[in-house]
């Protein structure tokens, strides 16, 4: 029997309300969220004296935030091995050993599932659900093991960026951003079995974060990688300070600041406005994206036309991204980005208000490095919670080697 009209209406209304509720989290004007910080007590009450590592405060909602500062100096212990990949595989297996059957089912996914491998987002996890186990739902032992996996997969710089991004969510929560923002709402997944020589992929992500690192026979492909952060400037949480993307942003700005007026004009993407990154989330497409600018649409100024000093600043900017991973794991890929032959086909470009110049405090400012394979872009958007400041969305991709070119 077909549902009657009234039932339809109710369904529509319910669906609408449910959606509104989900969206409320990203609503910058929500002022009624002050009570959420009390339910997430660890988000506000940890005054540096909390040393329990991952006190979930008895939260029944299973998504308590993490005491991020407790993890800033963790060591890999027995998993500190000769190579970074050995350390990572050791840490991954140590994590696996701490999990129960249900958790393992969440953590370990099928490497051949290309659609799942391409699911990640910049959005809060309430809006787009992620693969894997939720950090905030783990017990102390498993949480520590999971953080060790992150530490082993990333370089020290990269790990600090990771901590900064998840701490920023707690910071937004403190500012009244609502329960959608929490350092606990980050997810870790393995596609295939972690192995020093096999093919597998690690996915670690949540709001403003997507590490997709594919390992093929011992070589790492840390792309696509999305990191964003609000605020983009330094902030304090539990007496620790973070500024996860400040170095990256500054390095790009330094690159553009070194250009002469005419070079800057040449690098300007006239007729194009950017409200966000261009090559954003793959949304479970299961394939490599194909809509990079090509031919005449590749705009900007060629790096090879710049002076050695200017080129050094381009290299320094690129290194801000590739240095987030252990060098020996990713160098087979990343060394190719900074060669002179790559620079002969690498453009740097920017967009935004031309009269304002490359000013990351102006919404709409956009910076890009577009190489034969390398793709780095940074977009400055108005903040969602801190609405009077801009914040960063960044993408780091490889046009040929995203997901190890192995979807």
């Amino acid at each position, binding site marked *: *029997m*077909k*549902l*009657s*009209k*009234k039932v*339809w*209406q109710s*369904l*529509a*209304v319910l*669906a*609408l309300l449910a*959606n*509104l509720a*989900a*969206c409320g989290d*990203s*609503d*910058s*004007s929500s002022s009624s969220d002050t009570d959420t910080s009390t339910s997430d007590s660890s988000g506000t009450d940890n005054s540096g004296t909390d040393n329990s590592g991952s006190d979930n405060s008895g939260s029944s909602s299973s998504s308590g935030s993490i005491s991020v500062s407790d993890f800033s100096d963790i060591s890999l212990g027995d998993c500190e091995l000769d190579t970074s990949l050995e350390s990572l595989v050791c840490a991954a297996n140590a994590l696996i050993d701490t999990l129960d059957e249900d958790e393992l089912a969440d953590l370990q996914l099928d490497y051949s599932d290309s659609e799942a491998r391409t699911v990640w987002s*910049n*959005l809060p996890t309430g*809006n*787009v659900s992620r693969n894997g186990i939720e950090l905030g739902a783990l017990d102390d032992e498993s949480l520590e093991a999971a953080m060790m996996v992150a530490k082993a997969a990333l370089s020290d710089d990269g790990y600090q960026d990771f901590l900064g991004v998840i701490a920023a969510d707690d910071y937004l929560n403190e500012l009244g951003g609502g329960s959608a923002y929490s350092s606990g709402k980050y997810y870790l997944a393995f596609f295939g079995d972690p192995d020093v020589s096999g093919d597998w992929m690690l996915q670690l992500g949540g709001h403003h974060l997507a590490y997709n690192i594919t390992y093929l026979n011992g070589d790492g492909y840390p792309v696509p990688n999305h990191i964003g952060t609000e605020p983009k400037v330094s902030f304090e949480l539990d007496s620790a300070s973070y500024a996860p993307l400040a170095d990256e942003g500054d390095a790009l700005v330094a690159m553009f600041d070194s250009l002469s007026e005419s070079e800057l004009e040449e690098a300007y993407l006239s*007729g*194009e*406005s*950017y*409200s*966000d*990154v*261009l090559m*954003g*989330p793959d*949304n479970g497409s299961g394939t490599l994206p194909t*809509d990079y*600018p090509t031919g005449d*649409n590749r705009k900007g100024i060629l790096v090879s036309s710049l002076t050695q000093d200017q080129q050094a600043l381009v290299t320094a900017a690129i290194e801000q991204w590739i240095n987030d991973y252990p060098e020996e794991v990713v160098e087979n890929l990343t060394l190719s980005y900074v060669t002179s032959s790559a620079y002969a086909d690498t453009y740097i470009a920017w967009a935004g208000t031309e009269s304002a110049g490359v000013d990351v405090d102006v919404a*709409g400012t956009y910076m890009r490095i577009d190489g034969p394979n390398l793709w780095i872009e940074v*977009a400055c*958007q*108005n903040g*969602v919670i801190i609405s009077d400041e801009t914040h960063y*969305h960044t993408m780091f991709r490889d046009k040929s080697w995203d997901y190890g070119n192995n979807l």
Partner: protein
Amino acid sequence: MKAVINLLFGLTFLVSLFCTKAFAHSASTSSVFIDTHKPQIELEIYLPLDQLRLADESLFPSQSDDLKQVNFSALQDYMQTHVSITTQNSQPLTAQKVDDFAIHEFDNVLFMVMKMQFIKPDNFDTSGFSLHYNAILHRVVTHKIYVSYRNDMHEVLKASQDIATIGLIRYQRETLFIEPEKITAWSQFKLMFVNGMSHIAAGIDHLLFLLCLILPAPLVSANKRWQSVAPVRQCVMSVAKIVTFFTLGHSLTLALTTLGYISFPVKPIEILVAASILVSALNAIRPIFSQSAMWIAFIFGLIHGQAFAIEMSHMGFDTQAIIVALVAFNLGIETVQLLIVICVVPVLAMLARTYFYSAIRITLSVLAMAAASYWIIERSM
């Protein structure tokens, strides 16, 4: 009411876009809903005004920050320039009109809503067409446009599931091939049959009317009162006549109205439906038209048929589909009517032989009169 439902679905869909598909909370997406089942191709378009201003400042007065001040006539030209359709045999179509402008605020984002209509040429190949669209996108290269079907037929079919996005228009993907979903005559027949059934089953006013008509059926009038009990055969015959003539009446006006031969304003029809209940309830208390009951049923049928037609008119069919839809919808109504008659008449016939039947009959009639009076007042307001 249908419009409200449409709106709700539209909004629901929009919200889900923001929540699940938007690439950032602060960079809003556009939505295009395509309706291909009308004589013209209709696009309903939602443009986020902040992104529109980023794309073309000249659409806004230079001295104002108020996005609502957007220049509608300039926007018409802008949309004509940035949205077009090509048929399968490469015939370009430009929008015949851009209208129904409205501004909606949603989740703190202001949206320009409008409709664009493209006339289908005589040789239009219904298997599909190409939509060329780069409004906002021509400048804001990061803009995303979600395209989906907005079609009442489709919505009725799909409403229990998620409304599927048929495509995403984005940077370097400014053309989208639109392949309207095939709706077979049989699936449409089933759908409209069920729709007709649920319409009468959910339409309390029509049910009440039917009940009032058949309440006195087991009785025979004498001296302007309902008195002796009619033989079963006579009772069945009289119910059959009443229902048949009611059906003939409403089929006639439903068909004539839906096919566009006649039209009546909605409000008086709704009031007349309520009045017909009042009259037939009065008749159930005291025989007013016992001799000519079937003709009264026919006349009231004409009125109710108008009301059914109003319901159907919101569904938007092309002329071919409408014949199937009409028959199916009517058969659906008929089926439920017959089921009710089959269930109710034997009970009434039995009750009529008890001493308390007149109490039941009068009580029900008074209740129906009260309800009818309420509807008359409510619908007159």
